């Protein structure tokens, strides 16, 4: 009975593909499926979908230091999407950051990464995007304030910070490493978050993947650094994290929750392994581990008292947490990043962990900002950063206050 229903639905949907936009080439099945996988790897849907909006129809407001940018409609709608774009137009946007007429795109659209992607992969992505139902959604693409609204200014930016050109495999490395490099440096655009920006909003190549802060979340160092990075993670743990959103010491939340749910949890294991191999073998860089604060430090003593009362029921007295549910804080790489933002904001505003098919539960951290003051949060964060073998700089009440001002009311 259900198959009959399904057929009827399909019959209703089919004409939608034909009207309002360019039709997909029905003989291109292999490319379309490959393109869908690549679109997943690139997590295009994350930025190109407005809250409550149709997937890929754009309209998400990206907050940048220069103002708000609204993301483009990628559906093949002729008037408001990519319906009139050719494959060459699409490739030019991805490789050069230019629209069909030649106007400049802003690097909030991470073409400095996409320039690495092969033309074959771009054509597959293009083929897949043509199969989406066209959605009429006109997005105001000119929301930046003066002077950033002058798109020609991107000529200078590109000269300074943009190196067009395809990915070049390193013949001395394994195919797996090169596949990982291609994904991380290209479509995956991991560095767009994990690499710090310079004053012009460009990724600092000298600090590639060494950590950043996005939307008041700590974006950790994902080089192989022993202290700050993935040095203590095995390749398998990196794969497990990307696939399921968790390892024994970590549960993804914040922006990485979306990346895992929309993208990496749906990628093939071989690609995840390649990414892990690349990150683990790609070198290590980060700050040296500081000496932990002594337990006798007044901040540590206050922090410990708060931890026992408020945190230890779930995270346990020894900081070992509960597998799949409450992150282990001992040895937790987020807890000991230089930037303590995630620890602070998750105490203030709470959060939820990633839900994947492997682990659908998505446990929550309650918001405690309503009953812990800035001094108290600073103390407990300092305690977590310097207990059970952890070592990281202490956190001041001012840092907590600043972050509280920025995230209060933030729902996540």
């Amino acid at each position: 009975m259900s198959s009959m229903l399904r057929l009827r639905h399909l019959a209703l949907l089919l004409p939608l593909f034909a009207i309002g936009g360019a039709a997909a080439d029905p003989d291109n099945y292999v490319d379309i499926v490959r393109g869908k996988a690549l679109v997943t790897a690139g997590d295009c849907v994350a930025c190109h979908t407005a809250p409550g909006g149709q997937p890929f129809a754009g309209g998400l407001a990206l907050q940048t230091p220069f103002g708000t940018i609204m993301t483009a409609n990628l559906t093949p709608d002729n008037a408001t999407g990519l319906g009139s774009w050719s494959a060459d137009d699409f490739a030019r946007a991805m490789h050069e950051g230019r629209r069909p007429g030649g106007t400049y795109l802003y690097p909030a659209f991470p073409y400095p990464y996409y320039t690495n992607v092969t033309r074959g992969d771009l054509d597959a992505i293009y083929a897949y995007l043509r199969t989406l139902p066209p959605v009429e959604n006109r997005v105001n693409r000119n929301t930046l304030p003066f002077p950033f609204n002058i798109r020609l200014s991107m000529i200078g930016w590109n000269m300074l910070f943009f190196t067009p050109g395809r990915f070049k495999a390193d013949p001395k490395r394994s195919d797996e490493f090169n596949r990982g490099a291609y994904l991380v440096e290209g479509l995956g655009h991991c560095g767009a978050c994990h690499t710090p920006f310079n004053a012009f909003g460009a990724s600092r190549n000298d600090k590639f993947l060494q950590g950043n802060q996005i939307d008041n979340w700590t974006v950790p160092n994902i080089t192989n650094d022993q202290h700050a990075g993935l040095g203590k993670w095995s390749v398998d743990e990196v794969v497990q994290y990307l696939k399921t959103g968790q390892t024994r010491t970590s549960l993804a939340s914040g922006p990485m929750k979306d990346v895992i749910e929309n993208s990496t949890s749906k990628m093939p294991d071989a690609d995840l392994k390649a990414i892990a191999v690349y990150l683990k073998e790609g070198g290590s860089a980060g700050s040296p581990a500081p000496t932990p604060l002594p337990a006798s430090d007044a901040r540590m003593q206050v922090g410990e008292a708060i931890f026992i009362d408020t945190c230890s029921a779930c995270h346990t007295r020894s900081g070992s947490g509960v597998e799949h549910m409450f992150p282990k804080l001992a040895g937790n790489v987020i807890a000991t990043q230089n930037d303590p933002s995630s620890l602070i904001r998750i105490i203030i505003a709470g959060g939820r962990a990633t839900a994947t098919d492997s682990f659908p539960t998505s446990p929550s951290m309650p918001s405690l900002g309503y009953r812990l003051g800035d001094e108290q949060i600073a103390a407990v964060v300092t305690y977590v950063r310097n207990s059970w073998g952890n070592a990281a700089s202490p956190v001041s009440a001012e840092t907590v206050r600043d972050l509280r001002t920025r995230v209060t009311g933030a729902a996540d």
Partner: protein
Amino acid sequence: MVRRLQRKDVVIVGLGWTGSILAYELSHTGLDVVALERGPWRDTAADFNIGTAPDELRYAVRHDIFLRPKQDTLTMRNNPSQTALPIRKWGSFLPGNGVGGAGVHWNGQTWRFLPDDFRIRSHMIERYGEGILPEGNQIQDWPVSYDDLEPYYDKFERVAGISGKAGNIKGEIHPGGNPFEGAREHDYPTPPMKQGYQQELFTRAAANMGLHPFPRPSANLSVAYTNPYGCSMAPCTFCGFCEWFGCANYSKASPQTCILPALIREPSFEARTECEVTKVNLTVDGKTATGVTYVDAQGEEWEQPADLVLVCAYSLFNVRLLLLSGIGKPFDPASGEGVVGRNYAYQTGSGSLGFFENVKFNPFAAAGSTGVALDDYNSDNFDHGPHGFVGGASITCAHTNGRPIRYHPTPSGTPMWGSAWKKAVRDTYQRVASVGAQGSVMSYRNNYLDLDPTYKDALGRPLMRMTFDYQPNEQKMANWMADRCDEIAKAMGAKATQINRLRVPWNVVPYQTTHNTGGAVMGNDPKTSVLNRYLQSWDVPNVFVMGASAFPQNAGYNPTGTVGALTYWGLDAILNYLKSPGPLVQS
């Protein structure tokens, strides 16, 4: 005006334990499933935040997560000669409301009924003769045996992660477990909960008396656990906020912790909350359900057509929906004919409170299902011959909480307020141990459910009327059990004890237990049952009814374990039905 929606394969009425299990399993096969729930969506992260969940005033006193009597209530009376009046504030039992149903606020005691419970009528007659059966009884054998249900008990225990100690694995008795239980294929999925000092005293005293104490099976988990659906739970922290509360620690098995995280990922599943199903719609001949009609939160009326209707509300409201929909013949106690509303049963509570000296029981370090129990006096595990009653009780030494507002046991005769009361609370808070007997209730002609002739709900539908009292058989049984509890409390070293006998007539005001059973019972004879042995309506084969409403009478245990097992049993039947729709048993 009723507007008709697009047809679904399956419509589920109520999204508690039974509804969410069936919704997950059926949508997972690709069927289009919609669940209609009259209460709100409830989720651990959003609704049972650790910062706000342990709020005794909000939940235990003001009943925040229970059905509001203004939404729906019942009228009640003790016997057919009385005029029933509406329950305007819940007391004796507390129906759930919202996604998760009563599975949100339960304590988590998860039992298997004993093999004899399933054929109690035949068994009692075989051993003691007809004369043992009480006057006016309608006790009947279940149409399924313990062995039929064993794999399904096992499945539910694995989904819920139950913590316990097996007493009988494949016929081999394991010391420390319940030697009376039916043979199990597997041990419990997680080890038993840690017990408190009073449970230690109970265990020692009971063992010395030749009884067989064991840690009772608990849905508050002893260790972290990930169930077959991939849903993860954390170990219980003994916060003592289980019954009447949602668990903030992901430690209590509930639809929220065990099923919903997986269910909401199913693309062919849809839940509509704050939608009250008003009736199951039937074809003109009354032999096929065409779907349901419901009213949404805005008061709009909708018709949801569906090929299969699964009635998964709370047991009492399952019965009411059948009565309102005209599915099955209503029971008439005068003629003894009809089936819907027949064999409503409940649970007895009796026991002994022991007052100790020089102890600190720390009742605040508790969980809803910690406790040590014994089954020596349950079912027919003892000789009923000298006692002249049918049934039995599980006897347990437990403390589920030491919460500040409502937990202040005092010796009888203590004033209800003032300095003497305060002193008594101070003196006894740490020194009281309860030994309680949770007993079976048999089914009788005069204990039944029907539609009230006078009172209506906000939508103009008649309220359901409950006619119930504890019969002499139950009084005799429960009071005999109270004496057994008292013996144990004394053997534990109590300096004084206070026996709590069964309160009669049954009174709807004080809280007793939310173990309402029967009214839409399963059986082998359509003259004495609403459902066949597959929980399928005899009259309308595309309607299945889940829950404790199917129990022919109630046993001396909490019902949820058996409700869970019956749900998985029913699921297999539904999957068979879908291959070839029609009655699974010819009437």
